[in-house]
């Protein structure tokens, strides 16, 4: 049985800890600013297609999340507090607490990244806001679900830094391809029904990731 109060306590602990240590927040925001600057200098005044611009947006979001979201579990391992958490709460409470924290953190990151991207990259103008918002919402949850599970796996490994993006890429590829297509549709001004297929894929991806996490997290967390 998962206690909602215990999950909320983990989420609050994560935020309080993050505000004091800035483990993930600084890494995420610095990555967004750095990659956006590089894109800005590279694109310049070129007329880039919406296909490419949609892809670049998700490349920024993907790699930024890679730099920060693993910290939720890696920091517990590095500080030696994993055992403390194991003595305080059942595995799934820890997982869902950290998942909710990662979703909120990634959502904040996405708002900043997308805001700056729309402001700085001239050719990127959203026409279908319904498709765009739902894509960002489902993409954020999907990305956070996959990264939280992968973070738990790699936190037990010796080569954490390199393993995270390597392991994440194949697992997140279906998600990335789908959100890029849906984002392109929103920029091209497609009607909502044209993006239903993408939303079905995103929803299914989230369900699969959560189901897999539910089954395997106990084994990852214990040993």
């Amino acid at each position, binding site marked *: 049985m998962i*206690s909602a*109060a*215990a999950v909320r*306590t*983990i989420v609050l*602990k994560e935020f*309080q*800890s993050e505000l*004091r*240590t800035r483990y993930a927040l600084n890494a995420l925001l610095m990555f967004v600013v750095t990659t956006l600057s590089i894109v800005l200098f590279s694109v310049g005044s070129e007329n880039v297609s919406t296909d490419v611009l949609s892809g670049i947006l998700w490349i920024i979001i993907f790699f930024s999340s890679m730099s920060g979201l693993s910290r939720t579990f890696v920091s517990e391992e590095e*500080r*030696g*507090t994993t*055992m*403390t958490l*194991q*003595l*305080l*709460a*059942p*595995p799934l409470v820890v997982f869902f607490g950290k998942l909710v924290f990662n979703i909120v953190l990634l959502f904040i990151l996405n708002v900043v990244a997308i805001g700056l991207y729309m402001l700085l990259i001239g050719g990127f103008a959203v026409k279908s806001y319904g498709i765009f918002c739902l894509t960002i919402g489902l993409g954020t949850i999907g990305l956070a679900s996959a990264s939280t599970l992968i973070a738990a796996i790699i936190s037990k490994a010796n080569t954490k830094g390199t393993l995270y993006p390597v392991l994440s890429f194949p697992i997140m590829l279906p998600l990335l391809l789908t959100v890029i297509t849906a984002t392109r549709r929103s920029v091209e001004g497609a009607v909502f029904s044209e993006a239903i297929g993408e939303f079905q894929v995103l929803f299914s991806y989230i369900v699969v990731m959560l189901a897999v996490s539910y089954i395997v997290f*106990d084994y990852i967390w*214990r*040993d």
Partner: protein
Amino acid sequence: MRDVSLRGTKLTKTYNRRNVFAQIDFEMSGTQSWAIVGRNGSGKSTLVKIIAGLLSATSGDVVLTVDGKSIRRDDQYHYIGFVSPYLQLYEEFTAHENLALFSRLRGGSLDADRVDALLRRITLHQRKDDLVRTFSSGMKQRLKYAFALLHEPPVLILDEPTTNLDAEGIELVYDIIAEQRTRGIAIIASNDKEDTERCDALIDLNAARTPDSRRPA
């Protein structure tokens, strides 16, 4: 007092095909205190982690029974208190914030009186609003006792219980062990004779693979 028992059957732990220990059996119940002794690398810490449900045994079982009911591994944290030098608390939080967090996570609400009483007992009440990272190793060790006792567990597991403590701290630990012997099971993994001589029974990882009971249960 709760009726508690802890039974280990044929516990074996293997790392990289090397047996740390094999075929360990024990049955603890009532208000017994048990010592786990053995030279460095004999698997004392590994065994206490397995008993606490923090690590899986390669083979064998540990069954915790409270009031006649077998406790699932996921729920064992309600009944076990654990102190060890390798256990870490959140250094970015104050002593009080740490205990408040633990209290909420375990029970859903903050028992402020209990937290205050424990902080006084471990003589950290004056420093309760200081970040744990500013504490000495002895103060951190004392705080771990508050962490372990917060929920008044029927099973208290202490690995190297007096590490980093001064004479006053060591006396506090012996008081805590004596108190635990009126409430439930105490398990002490140590090579310090003073720590283990008060125990009723012994698991010697150097020699016997089965416990040598000093005092019948």
